[in-house]
């Protein structure tokens, strides 16, 4: 039983570390702000859940597990919210995602280019 829990928890921790490393590589390598933000946000959330699940399995039924779950819940709420705020601010100040050759930019999106911003850019 102990062996099973150890194997499960280490699988979770290694999986979570893998997500984190992949998201870090994505932040460095991706071409523009939006895809980098996507890598940071999704990779962090997924890796964080797996890491906390692994640590919960390691600590067993103790107060530490309760605290870890609380941390997980708050990170799960605040992480995507922060990403939303950053992406929203970038969109409003006039940044647009890079588009490929075959792709057509979306028309009539809210807060689009038609509306001038004081910031310019």
């Amino acid at each position, binding site marked *: 039983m102990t062996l099973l829990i150890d194997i499960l928890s280490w699988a979770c921790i290694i999986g979570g570390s893998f997500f984190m490393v992949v998201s870090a590589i994505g932040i460095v390598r991706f071409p523009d702000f939006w895809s980098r933000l996507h890598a940071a946000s999704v990779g962090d959330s997924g890796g964080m859940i797996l890491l906390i699940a692994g640590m919960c399995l390691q600590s067993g039924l103790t107060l530490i597990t309760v605290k870890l779950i609380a941390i997980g819940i*708050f990170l799960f*709420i*605040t992480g995507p*919210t922060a990403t*939303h*705020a950053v992406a929203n601010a970038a969109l*409003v*100040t006039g940044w647009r995602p890079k588009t490929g050759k075959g792709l057509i930019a979306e028309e009539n999106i809210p*807060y689009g280019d038609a509306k001038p*911003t*004081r*910031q310019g850019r």
Partner: protein
Amino acid sequence: MEHHLILRVVTKLLVGTIILFAFYVQFHGDFSPGGGFQAGVIMAVAFILYGLVFGLDAVQQVFPPWIVHKLVALGVLVYAGTGIWNMVLGYEFLHYGSLNPHHMSHGQHTGIIWVEAGVGITVTGVMIAIFYAFAGRAPRLGDDDW
């Protein structure tokens, strides 16, 4: 539909929890990592988050600047007052044991709680005052631009 709907909902969820956590760090400071400085910063973060999302006017209705400026001085007064009170009781400055001369260790617990309360009040006040000072300047991006 409000533009910042997600931020507003999440902020309403979080502000109370952040204040509760600040009090946890404040009063748990003599058992575990934490204490007045960290608790003060966490407490200030709750108000700064509220101010960032709901606007400076909303947070200044909750926490007017004149109260903030008084709090900055009040915390130092509590801290130094504890030390002076120890001197009044006939011991050195900040010799907490004098608060309960028969059980010095109990007196030290009481004294640490008072001193940490002073530090927490001052740090909360200073952090919020810095935020007010910066946020009080005119924004480059008005509310109508969102």
